[in-house]
């Protein structure tokens, strides 16, 4: 099934305006693993006939890693450019699969003049299921499987979203198992604060190894995440323990798309 991914420019040319903008983010656009998450979400949006559009080549980094790294200039340049584009298209509502984009757009753009309703993709999917627009197939792929959810810091602690991803996982036939450090006590994957783009400082262990070890203690079939960076870190962690044959690292959107047979 080919994906239907309209851009804002195309929509505008047709005189239409979408209900929601899908902010894909740099990972979702360029990283091979994260692109699969992007596509899973688009499949869900297409299935539910959501009127959405992407910015395509007009999208630019939100500036999140620059801000976390302490470079406010680069951040604000990015933000101002993005706000010009978003306001040009009169965007009101944004969904994104990246908690870093989510946090920055939602919390840090308003003071620079960009005011939008921003939601995380797990919140949107939850809404779609609750509205009956998306139904999961019975006896799906996850029957009897153990799934644990790793809280992305910028979704959980940073923005207090803990339940949406969990409610989605509970809709699968599998079993949601929690790590000892979860929700407000969740342990970071190690990628936040611009660490994704640098080597870790000197220590005695990698943070993603520490976190993956904790997840693997539960003997899960799936480690679910809601963040492309966490996904990378947990995937590397699983490889570190040579468990990639037994444990999958999947985004919640991928779990739902699979369960809905998309």
């Amino acid at each position, binding site marked *: 099934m080919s*994906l239907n991914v309209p851009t804002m420019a195309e929509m505008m040319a047709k005189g239409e305006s979408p209900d929601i903008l899908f902010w894909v983010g*740099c990972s*979702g*656009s*360029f*990283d091979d693993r994260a*692109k699969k998450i992007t*596509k899973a979400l688009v499949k869900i949006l297409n299935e539910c006939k959501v009127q959405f559009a*992407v910015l*395509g*080549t007009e*999208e*630019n*980094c939100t*500036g999140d890693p*620059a801000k976390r*790294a*302490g*470079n*406010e*200039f*680069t951040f*604000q*340049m*990015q933000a*101002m*450019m993005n706000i010009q584009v978003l306001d040009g298209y009169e965007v009101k509502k944004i969904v994104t699969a990246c908690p870093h984009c989510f*946090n920055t757009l*939602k*919390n*840090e753009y308003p003071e620079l003049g960009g005011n939008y309703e921003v939601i995380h993709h797990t919140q949107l999917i939850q809404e779609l299921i609750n509205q009956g627009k998306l139904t999961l197939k019975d006896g799906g792929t996850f029957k009897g499987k153990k799934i644990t959810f790793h809280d992305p*810091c*910028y979704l959980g*602690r*940073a*923005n*207090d979203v803990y339940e949406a991803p969990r409610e989605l996982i509970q809709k699968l036939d599998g079993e949601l198992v929690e790590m000892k450090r979860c929700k*407000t*006590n*969740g*342990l*970071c994957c*190690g990628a936040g*604060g*611009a*660490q994704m*783009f*640098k*080597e*870790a*400082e*000197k*220590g*005695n*262990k*990698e*943070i993603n*190894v*520490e*976190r993956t070890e904790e997840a693997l203690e539960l003997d899960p079939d799936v480690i679910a995440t809601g963040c492309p960076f966490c996904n990378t870190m947990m995937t590397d962690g699983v490889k570190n323990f040579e468990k990639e044959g037994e444990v999958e690292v999947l985004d919640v959107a991928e779990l739902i798309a699979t369960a809905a047979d998309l």
Partner: protein
Amino acid sequence: MIATILFALLLVIGFGFFGWNVMKVRSNIKLGRDIDRTDNKGERWKTMLLVAFGQQKMFTRPIPALLHLAIYAAFVITQIELIEIIIDGLMGNHRTFHSSLGGFYTFMISFIEVLSVAALIATIIFLSRRNLLKLPRFNMSEMNGWPKMDGNMILFMELVLVLCIFTMNGADEAAHVQLTGESYGFAISSLIGPAFFEGMSLESLHTLERIGWWGHILMVFAFLNYLPYSKHFHIVLAFPNTYYSNLDKKGKFSNMESVTKEVKLMMDPTADPFAAPPEGEVAEPQRFGAKDVTDLTWKNLLDSYTCTECGRCTSSCPANITGKLLSPRKIMMDTRDRLVEVGDNKRKHGADYDDGKSLLGDYITEEELWACTSCNACVQECPVNIDPLSIIVDLRRYLVMEESKVPSELTGMLTNIENNGAPWQFSPSDRLNWANED
């Protein structure tokens, strides 16, 4: 008479010296940059009530929370007895409220005694956690020396306080029984009296009671005046500190207005970069980010005085857990130590004195700053809503924007964002390629 004069003198010196030190701390805190925390008063009172008064966040770790609650409750309730002690001391009375309050007096003193026993037990457990069990979070490198001693001193002083109370009440009880044939009927001292003080002469009982009474009040003033020098100041500052909490989402980093102005100028083709600032607007040259404590906000500085070095932040920090140099607690301790130094320097050598040192470099190293993942675990954990992360970010801002000191991989990331709108080196024209790939 002499006792009354001595007591009045003690009162004046005790409160006076404390007040003087509080003013010093206040003036140090006011060295920080301004930040507006006057909004949302209802929410602020609620936060203070729950987090400081109700100790809400302590209860994520129930056992220490209960022990801490015992000491806290005993401390707060004992202040009622302190009122009587002060009145007795000034009037030369003995148990001023005993006759007028009757049964309620017996109940109050009994309540205080029961709480004091609970506090005594908690204090002993806390001392053994620090010194016998050697809990890791109390034995990290930043705790060596004074901080470890500080923690033990506080607990030791609490022991003395409680022991004085029971010496006072126990001896008084035994004397009361000898004189009137009746017990006061206080919950604990009616047991301690006969057990420890029976058979003593009235004179020695009286002496013991006075030793307990004076020992207690002297310890109270010693403790009060120790506070401004100690991590234990949290018993006072937890209240304002939680009132002035950050009420925004934790993920929101502060916006730098000074940068916004410049960026707007750069993006506005009609702007005149050489135009004089509009009337009324004073252009203060401020550095970007923070190099020293005076570049931080007063809330950051209040945070540093409020920190009681419990180490919950550090024990939940992913960087610290995996052996990196960063410890959020050390960030707070360094900030306070440096602030005390800067404040003392200014008072001694004048407001413009520069000792050539700074928080960044002399206290906190770049390696610590670059280990942070900005995950907010430290902020979440702090029982009194301290925010170590905002200090880390402001120090990073100074490093990056004033000194261009960025880890080399991050330079690449920043250049990529500026050149091609993504942290990696991909062409912006390829951004939508995923839609057409399998």
